[in-house]
């Protein structure tokens, strides 16, 4: 079981998520290329993971008993980088180096470049396999760590992913928790038009997984889902997190054209103003 999520902690997490979104916009603007929609959509989940769920030591990223967080859809790594910087893995200042030469923050994450990044990823569909390998190793060594594998919905087009799902079900890997960013978009358009993946829940159930569906922006619901996953002993669990791509920036939300591009200066200014005023609900001190 995770630590109880008190009102105060929940408020802290929600504020943290907003700070991460702000730094995301600034980081993407500085980088001049990269993905916007996915990272914003997964910010609440990354915040919940790094600041409440994961058993980890940012100053000792290779601690052998740490929970593993695998990002299969490597292209949303900016949100991982910003969350890691906020959690203390590296200085926030370093976010400015994203996608630039000699940086540890590669355009798609690279394990040996940055401590705390568990895998090299980017090519879709193979993160779940690698997570399965880590979960198997944990079982062989009688370790208690959990392996979280974050996936996109679009990458469920890939055969490799289903090979991994089948194998995880066969081996009853209850130390493996998949999290799917169900935001309904991929590069070429809406997922159900490109290559329908529904019924997703039933597919995973047919592969012998326990499936939970949550609102991916409700941190409390997500934490509850992870607790439920921890209580399932006979199966791996997948949490289908329904998210809004571009969440928090009105003109990016649900627009697939924001999948693979960063904001320009004007757009970033507008986005930051929205985030700092919580969509106009509050007066910002730095408009």
């Amino acid at each position, binding site marked *: 079981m995770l630590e109880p999520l008190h009102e105060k902690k929940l408020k802290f997490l929600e504020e943290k998520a907003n700070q991460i979104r702000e730094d995301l916009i600034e980081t993407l603007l500085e980088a001049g290329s990269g993905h916007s929609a996915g990272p914003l959509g997964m910010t609440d989940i990354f915040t919940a993971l790094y600041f409440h769920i994961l058993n980890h030591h940012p100053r000792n990223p290779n601690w052998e008993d740490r929970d593993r967080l695998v990002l299969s859809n490597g292209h949303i790594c900016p949100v991982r980088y910003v969350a890691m910087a906020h959690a203390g893995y590296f200085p926030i200042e370093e976010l400015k180096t994203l996608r630039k030469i000699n940086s540890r923050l590669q355009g798609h994450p690279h394990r040996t470049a940055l401590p705390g990044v568990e*895998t*090299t990823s980017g090519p879709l*569909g193979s993160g779940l*396999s690698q997570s*399965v*390998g880590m979960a198997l190793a944990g079982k062989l060594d009688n370790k208690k760590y959990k392996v979280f594998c974050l996936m996109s919905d679009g990458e469920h087009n890939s055969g490799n992913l289903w090979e991994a799902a089948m194998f995880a079900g066969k081996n009853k890997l209850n130390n493996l928790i998949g999290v799917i960013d169900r935001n309904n978009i991929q590069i070429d358009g809406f997922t159900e038009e490109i290559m329908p993946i529904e019924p997703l829940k039933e597919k995973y159930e047919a592969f012998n997984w326990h499936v939970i569906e949550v609102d991916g922006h409700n941190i409390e619901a997500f934490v509850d889902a992870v607790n439920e996953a921890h209580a399932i002993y006979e199966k791996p669990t997948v949490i289908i997190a329904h998210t809004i791509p571009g969440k928090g920036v009105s003109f990016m939300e649900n627009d697939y054209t924001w999948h693979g591009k960063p904001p320009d200066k004007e757009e970033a200014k507008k986005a930051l103003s929205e985030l700092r005023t919580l969509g106009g609900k509050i007066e910002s001190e730095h408009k």
Partner: protein
Amino acid sequence: MLANKLNPKIFEKDVEMKAIRDGYGDGLLIAGEANPDIVVLCADLTESTRSQKFAEKFPKRFFELGVAEQNLAAVAAGLGVSGKIPFISSYATFSPGRNWEQIRTTIAYNDSNVKIAGHHAGIMTGPDGATHEATEDVAIMRTLPNMRVFVPCDWIEAKKATIAAAKLWGPTYIRFAREKSPVVTTEKTPFTPGKAEILWQSKKPQALIVASGVLVHNALLAARELENEKIGTVVLNLHTIKPIDEEKIASLAQKCGAAVSVEEHQIYGGIGSAVAEVLAKNHPVPQEFIGMQDTFGESGNPWDLVKKYGMDAKDIRHAVKKVLRRK
């Protein structure tokens, strides 16, 4: 003349025949007993790739993944960054063929300590035909940064390569052949990863024959026949394609003044290309290429295929004579 510590019956008609893949099975057992972190993964080819003995002896450290080679590679990658030393085996056309990108990203670039065993490599796979005869595997593996590549010449060397792969840190590819082939080496033959071994040395060598894998025996047969024709050669067993023994190849090429590469693999990108790179960089000499000449294989008796595709001892002999004319 033959180097010391080789099989004394190497040129006899009744030379012992054993499949190179058998060395994988024996090597796995020895390595697995020595190190509990070694795990073995297979994709529905456990017996054929000689993983069976390990699976029986260490059932908890053996994983059957079914016909899913992409998963095979990437699951191993996850194990490899979690303190395990995974060996994965399938036919080389499927692994590293089908799953090359997973090997590139999750094993090589990710620097995961995975050992890839490519079985049924080369046209000597025989009756199964070209779909199952990997003739490109060395090329696609040696081009990957971080990847070490072994091509053992017989089952004893295959055993040594398997054990060495378990001990050496880092992504490694080992190529195994299916068909029984002559035993060239003995337990006492030196095997040092990265160091090519001279197996035949004439007093006045005029050509260097660099051979790998199952065709090393043919290279030795050719060397003996050439010696009878008063043509001296050196036969170098290149069991490690990467890191390549640049120093030895270059210095022997300089001494001999001509080279012939011998591989049961495509001549574009494979072992001959690796040798040519070394020569071009250090000491250019004329080179002839024995191997698959930009064509796929076919079904047939393995030894007939070797003849048909120009990789017999006679073909090596002709290649040596041809390269001497180009000196």
